[in-house]
């Protein structure tokens, strides 16, 4: 037996009209953590789908050599039998079932169709211990946080006697602490001899844990590095990913000098819609000046999205109290319509769920938030509509064959530009951007940063929520920290760093 666990040779996979993969070669050594990286749409997920049999043998050309045997997987069960397990980016857990039920779903412990619950619970406990999950096996998935859900997915993989664990963007939805735990877990597994493939956009993480990196671009293998032997740095990887050098991700921004307060929130309180006694936001006050980019930093569960959505037309929460001022005037933001009319826009963190109607065209999505601008007496002027949509496509640099294309066919980055374009069409003065670059590739990220910066230069006020501190430090003039619903600090860009922010993000002063 060689020390190569998996070799994918000359994999070519075509979809009608597109070559998704072209002669891709990919090699994974036994016992290593191998990072697979590339822009969205580069072909990473397709490659993993070929490997796991979701794209069955015969639908692609090339060979998969696993444990020195040529494998022809017909479906996911085939690859799982060999110990190849994928944990998908969108978690495949059933919210209404318990941790134990989810872990052994389709793989139930028992005989003759009767489940042995004692055995199930016992094994679940063992698996949970291995992944460091401290919960009751009978807790429902919907009641535990997304970080814990990820651990359940991994425990589920372990229950199937995994030899090769594939993680597709495992930390995309996790905060820094949870990410850290997950990465440590991977290192722990490595010590036990497990091999993993990790797909991620977060270069820092990849450098921290992986032994090798393979870069894919436009369906082809661009490079493969051994991190212990080769001299590699982030810049080199980014260049391989985008085919050009990105010396600085964030646009240059001169020191902010403005002092005209555009938008101010005072003594904002929000209660949980599920539990009226629980204050999700507690007496929060903050402001943003004209032309300023203000960041809100907080760990997952700190109440960032809740704060934003409660301000935006009370889209979240109950018993909301507090005051909001625009240009010093108190404003009523009781529903979304009023918020929009007052010049506020909210770009949600979840563009698929809250931002776009995926089955509709780019044009329809772009126009959605302000139909009054393209209509007279309730009748839409389709010519003006097309003209305006074309304008937005150009100014936002949305890459699509046509504005009639369904948004579900666009890449993540371009979908995000459609969401931004939709809000630009309402001509807002205040933009709340909730995780504006989540799950999009490096190239598109830098484009989004550029757009945000231009908006600020035009005099718009921007509130940016992000769980990536470097992003906030790179983009914002001023950063508020949020912890357990309290605003715990206010930092000027030039006087702060990740460590200082983290201190405030984890401490509530009594």
């Amino acid at each position, binding site marked *: 037996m060689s020390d190569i666990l998996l070799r994918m040779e000359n994999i070519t996979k075509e979809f009608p009209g597109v070559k998704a993969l072209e002669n891709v070669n990919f090699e994974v050594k036994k016992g290593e953590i191998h990072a697979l990286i590339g822009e969205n749409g580069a072909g990473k997920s397709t490659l993993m789908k070929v490997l796991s049999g979701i794209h069955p043998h015969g639908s692609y050309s090339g060979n998969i050599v696993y444990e020195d045997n040529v494998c022809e997987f017909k479906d996911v069960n085939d690859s799982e039998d060999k110990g190849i397990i994928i944990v998908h980016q969108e978690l495949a857990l059933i919210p209404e079932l318990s941790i134990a039920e989810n872990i052994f779903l389709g793989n139930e412990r028992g005989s003759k169709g009767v489940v042995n619950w004692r055995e199930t619970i016992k094994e679940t406990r063992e698996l949970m211990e291995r992944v460091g999950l401290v919960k009751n096996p009978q807790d429902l998935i919907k009641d535990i946080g997304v970080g814990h859900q990820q651990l359940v997915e991994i425990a589920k993989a372990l229950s199937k006697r995994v030899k090769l664990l594939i993680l597709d963007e495992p930390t995309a939805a996790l905060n820094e602490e949870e990410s850290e735990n997950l990465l440590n877990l991977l290192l722990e597994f490595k010590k036990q001899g497990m091999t993993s493939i990790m797909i991620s956009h977060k270069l820092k993480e990849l450098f921290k844990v992986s032994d090798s990196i393979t870069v894919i671009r436009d369906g082809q293998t661009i490079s493969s590095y051994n991190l212990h032997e080769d001299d590699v740095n982030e810049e080199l990887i980014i260049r391989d990913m985008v085919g050009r050098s990105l010396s600085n991700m964030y646009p240059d921004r001169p020191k902010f000098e403005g002092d005209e307060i555009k938008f101010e929130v005072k003594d904002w309180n929000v209660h949980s819609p599920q539990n009226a006694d629980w204050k999700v936001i507690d007496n929060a006050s903050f402001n943003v000046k004209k032309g300023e980019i203000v960041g809100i930093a907080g760990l997952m569960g700190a109440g960032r999205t809740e704060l934003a959505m409660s301000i935006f037309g009370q889209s979240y929460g109950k018993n909301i109290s507090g005051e909001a001022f625009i240009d010093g005037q108190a404003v009523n933001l009781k529903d979304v319509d009023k918020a929009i009319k007052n010049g506020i826009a909210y770009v949600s963190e979840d563009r698929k*769920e809250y931002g776009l*109607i995926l089955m509709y065209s780019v044009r329809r999505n772009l126009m*959605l938030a302000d139909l009054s601008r393209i209509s007279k007496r309730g009748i839409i002027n389709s010519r003006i509509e097309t003209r305006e949509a074309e304008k937005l496509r150009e100014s936002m640099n949305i890459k699509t064959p046509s504005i009639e294309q369904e948004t579900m066919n666009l890449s993540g980055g371009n979908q995000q530009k459609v969401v931004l374009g939709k809000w630009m069409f309402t001509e807002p003065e205040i933009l709340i951007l909730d995780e504006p670059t989540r799950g999009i590739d490096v190239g598109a990220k830098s484009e989004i940063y550029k757009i945000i910066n231009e908006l600020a230069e035009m005099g718009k006020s921007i509130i940016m929520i992000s769980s990536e501190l470097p992003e906030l430090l790179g983009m914002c003039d001023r950063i508020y920290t949020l912890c357990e619903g309290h605003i715990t600090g206010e930092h000027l860009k030039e006087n702060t760093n990740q460590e200082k922010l983290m201190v405030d993000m984890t401490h509530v002063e009594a």
Partner: protein
Amino acid sequence: MTKIKQVLNDNIRKFGMIIALVGIMILFEILTSGILLTPLNITNIIMQNSYVIVLAIGMMLVIITGEIDLSVGSVAAFIGAIAGVLLVTHDLPVYVAILLCLLIGAGIGAWQGLWIAYFNIPSFIVTLAGMLIFRGLTLVVLNGRTLAPFPDSFRSLSSSFLPDWFNGSNLNIIAIVLGIVFTIAFIFVEINNRRTDLKYGYTTSSFPAFIAKLVVLSIVINIFTYTLSKYAGIPYVLIILLILVLGYSFVMNRMVVGRRIYAVGGNESAAQLSGIKTKKVKFWTFVNMGVLAALAGLIFAGRLNAATPQAGNLFELDAIAAAVIGGASFTGGVGTIFGAVIGALVMGVLNNGMSLMGIGIDWQQAIKGLVLLGAVAFDVMNKNK
């Protein structure tokens, strides 16, 4: 070659239901040795299916928002019963009675819309309850008996024809004239649209294709009105249908309201966060459905010339089937008014053709069920390709 294939493929998806309808019509024309397309029978098909088309239009809107209405058959029966009481028992003027009935329909829609939109009770449950409530109230109102006959002016709504002012002996001239007028109006609108499109620089179809479309549709319209003229001319109910179809198509395609209805069905959360009042949209969709169900109830009662407790039985299923065959999706967001009409006609021609052939009601039901399943299965498989 691949391009031709592509064009063909696109069109099969776009015109699939029309092709199916034409296919079914040709099939029954052959099986009934030419009875299906006689002037008398075509007139019959329109009159028999008028209330299903009315319901299908409302149902399409409801399904587009991602909801369902199981109560329309019972509501239609209830309104028929009210009309019976107002007109037969109390001799109210016809216009007053019709207006009252439509208002009651709106009220019923508002009642159901309230529970669905503002109290978040699934529409399946609310309208299932409505199905029982209004069937029961129909029996209460009618005391279990049948009320008849209706005054003539009420019956004309569903069974009379436009009078022929030209006194054609064998041919109804007004029908032919209206066909020509409609054709001219249609050509005028099309040319006007094309001209503005070109002015704004939008690529439209090629000139020969444009002419071909005009010619084909003009011929179809005029053959249709000519055929009607050979029997009794244009039924009033056809005019009502035409107004509804054109009106609702305009609302759904060209108006802000229509765009909002689609958005609510496409992604409710995204629509809400874009400033659309999703609850209000849903509420009014049900009010609209209530009014159309009332209209269907009136047409049906007029056609039967009686208010009976059994009226409107299984209408909801005909309406849902029509919408689904016409391309609606239960996940919401998809469907057109035109599709609903085609779907209703597919079911209608099937009913009529099988009856002409002397196939019993037992087999008719079974065959209709299979067609419904087949049509949707074909559509789903076509989309997955």
